[in-house]
């Protein structure tokens, strides 16, 4: 419910923004680059106002905007000369790929390191990991990306400088293409993962420490269960819940990081496209990307809510007892 409401607010803001913009949007649309100002006769002006539907009352414009959106029509990109939705759909997979890979890797590594730390609490491995990862968790992803780019791509030449696949390359098999894609994605994904692993580490370390002190773990030890079984079956499973929540809560900041990192590596995802669109004043495209990115993040969180209810029976149904 609140998600729907938020999406409505965002969509409406998106509608109002260009109309609240200082200056005449009409001039932006009609003036060529380099040309100071387009001169139109009153008749031409009237014609274009009608053409873009700008002469109708705002409410009517709003309604047609909403119905366009529902049909997936995000407008037309003047710079790329293509419908906005087509361009976005072409770029979206790359961003999704980066984000999902970074989420998975950072969660896995963060949890492993966090559990190790909790296991050796207050001993040297814990202290060492704690210091290193706290330091890492504060470094923003795009600054890390710059380091990776200049050492591994520009300096050592191990990775390509930009792009997601080699242009004009012909592959003899599908796995060769896959390898090429992974080769290009490696550094951006690493930058995002390293920037995030610290946060996941801290969380899982806390979560694991709390679980390790629980009575049922003492019981498990007393029963003489093997160590592996205790860690994975009894401790980690219960420690995972807060970690899963956090993964989705911080998706927004990860997307922000991905936008920046894509620009570091000239990776052809939505973030790179968004910056290009701003630079060439392609407003429908900027707005389209903004809408798609925001709604994707909201949807992911909505799904997470559903999954979380399933995972944790204590907050399951509304009708039952509110535990915890």
């Amino acid at each position, binding site marked *: 419910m609140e998600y729907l409401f938020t999406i409505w607010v965002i969509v409406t803001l998106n509608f109002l923004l260009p109309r609240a913009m200082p200056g005449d949007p009409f001039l932006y649309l009609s003036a060529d680059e380099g040309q100071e100002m387009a001169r139109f006769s009153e008749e031409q002006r009237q014609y274009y106002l009608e053409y873009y539907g700008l002469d109708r009352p705002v409410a009517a414009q709003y309604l047609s905007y909403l119905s366009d959106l529902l049909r997936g029509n995000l407008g037309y990109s003047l710079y790329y000369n293509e419908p906005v939705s087509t361009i976005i759909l072409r770029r979206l997979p790359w961003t999704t790929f980066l984000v999902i890979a970074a989420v998975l890797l950072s969660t896995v590594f963060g949890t492993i390191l966090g559990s190790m730390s909790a296991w050796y609490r207050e001993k040297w491995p814990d202290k060492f990991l704690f210091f290193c990862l706290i330091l890492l968790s504060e470094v923003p992803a795009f600054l890390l990306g710059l380091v990776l780019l200049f050492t591994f791509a*520009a300096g050592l030449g191990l990775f390509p*400088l930009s792009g997601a696949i080699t242009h004009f390359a012909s592959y003899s098999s599908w796995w060769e293409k896959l390898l090429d894609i992974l080769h290009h994605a490696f550094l951006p994904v690493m930058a995002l993962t390293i920037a995030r692993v610290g946060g996941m580490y801290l969380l899982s370390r*806390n979560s694991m420490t709390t679980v390790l002190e629980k009575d049922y773990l003492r019981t498990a030890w007393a029963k003489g269960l093997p160590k592996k079984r205790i860690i994975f079956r009894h401790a980690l499973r219960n420690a995972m819940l807060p970690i899963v929540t956090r993964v989705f*809560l911080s998706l*927004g900041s990860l997307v*922000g990081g991905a936008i920046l990192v894509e620009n570091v590596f000239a990776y052809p995802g939505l973030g790179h496209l968004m910056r290009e669109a*701003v630079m060439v004043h392609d407003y429908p495209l900027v707005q389209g*990307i903004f809408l798609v*990115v925001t709604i994707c993040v909201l949807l992911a969180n909505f799904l997470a809510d559903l999954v979380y209810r399933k995972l944790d029976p204590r907050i399951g149904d509304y009708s039952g007892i509110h535990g915890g």
Partner: protein
Amino acid sequence: MLVKIVERVKEFSLPGKASLVVILVFLLVAILAPYISIHPHNISSGPPLLPPGGGHPLGTDELGIDLWAQICYGARVSLLVGFGTALLAALGGGLIGIVSGYLGGWPDKVLMRLIDIMIILPDLPVMIVLAAFFGPSLLNIILVLALFSWVFPARIVRSQILMLKERSYIKSAETYGAGVWYLMWKHFLPEVFPLVAVNMIRLSGRAIVAEAGLSFLGLGDPTSKSWGLIIHHATNFKGIYYTDFWKWWLLYPWLALIIMVISLAFISRELERMVDPRMGR
């Protein structure tokens, strides 16, 4: 209050003390920028792309502008954005937290829902859109960042007020007829202030990173020479990958940013541990 803070500083760990010194140095550099920068920060003062040494301690960029001067003035931008955002967010968020916590009922519910959503929303796309439509200015950037930051102080203040409301000394003050404003000034604010102040340091770190990111994209305030903007110019220089220019042009603004952000984080971590022993680890 101030004396207490100074006493507390002695309890800082070594990284904490070092961070404090670093931030103080940055503050000094920012304040004294016109006096210590030697060369002007906005016009050319030598041959382009000069390596560090000689008259230019950190070298020059592609227009021959001295990098040390740019970094000095960049410290001003970073600190202004950081503390401006934190101050706005703390004031707004603090007020909202007090309203939410003290009134309860439906205003509280509405505000809490709003906070839940604001935490999820990605802030960078919004900042890019606003920068695209309204033109990037430092004030706009600070406003947008504050719009996305107030939720953290609001949450802290709310939970603190909820806790305090149930304390017996507040209850007894209320039965003696203490008004809302009296309670606020005498009891709530002194308790809440340290927590918010500590959170402000964390918020300014976030804001500095966000501004740097926006400037790196080329969407920051083009008239302010911020560190992010130097990085933007450096990475957009055609031959940067194949030459040695990055060794000063890119490295020094990068270092300045990293050191600033990490120092702020360490200080806030240290303070969080002191204000609330349960929060620190």
